[in-house]
């Protein structure tokens, strides 16, 4: 096995060093893109690049905005309960 192949395989055997901090939640943003892309691929019958990209970007943005609103509501609730 070549050194390159060994190196590539090795990257999948050692976990990344990610701390339990708020910034680590940013790892979920690429996941939103993947979800929006696959969902749109199952919904759009005839795929045209520009139209598909537009739809996927809109859905990605919608999910992120909804998550931000949800987070703000939960933070407000937590603040009201604890104050």
């Amino acid at each position, binding site marked *: 096995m070549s050194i390159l192949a060994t190196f590539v395989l090795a*990257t*999948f*055997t*050692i*976990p*990344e*060093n*990610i*701390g*339990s901090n708020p910034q*680590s939640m940013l*790892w*979920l943003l*690429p*996941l939103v893109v*993947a*979800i929006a*892309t*696959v*969902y749109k*691929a*199952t919904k759009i019958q005839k*795929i045209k690049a520009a139209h*598909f990209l537009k739809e996927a970007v809109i859905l990605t943005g919608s999910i992120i905005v909804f998550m931000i609103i949800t987070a703000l509501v939960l933070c407000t609730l937590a603040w009201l309960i604890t104050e």
Partner: protein
Amino acid sequence: MGPPSKGNHTPFLLIVGLLAWLVPGAGHLVLNEKRHAVIIFVAITLTFCTGIYIGSIGVINWVGAKPWFIAQMMNSPVVWILWKLVENGDYPVYGRPNEIGQIYTSIAGLLNLLCIVTAVYWAHLRRIETAGD
């Protein structure tokens, strides 16, 4: 694969579903939806690989995380092979990398399940349309 006749409708749907499970996007490829197949294959494979890159192949854990493993198995039977590689516990992973890795790989599996269902449904619709002609 040619258009199915009325007699082989169910086996055709099973083949589409099985292919879609074996390789993400293959179900759509059988239906001649090449663009859908490429997008699904790239998105799901990339999501799964990102998951095992973040958390290592140790995130595939039938013993300690059964519900996650079931979702991961929706990706492909390859997950079972990976589990056989890690079942001796040589690749332990804990904390946030484990959580994010499991979320990525499991969501990839659930997205593939959505694609399997869609591929089978489209195959069924086309069979109905063919029969109606």
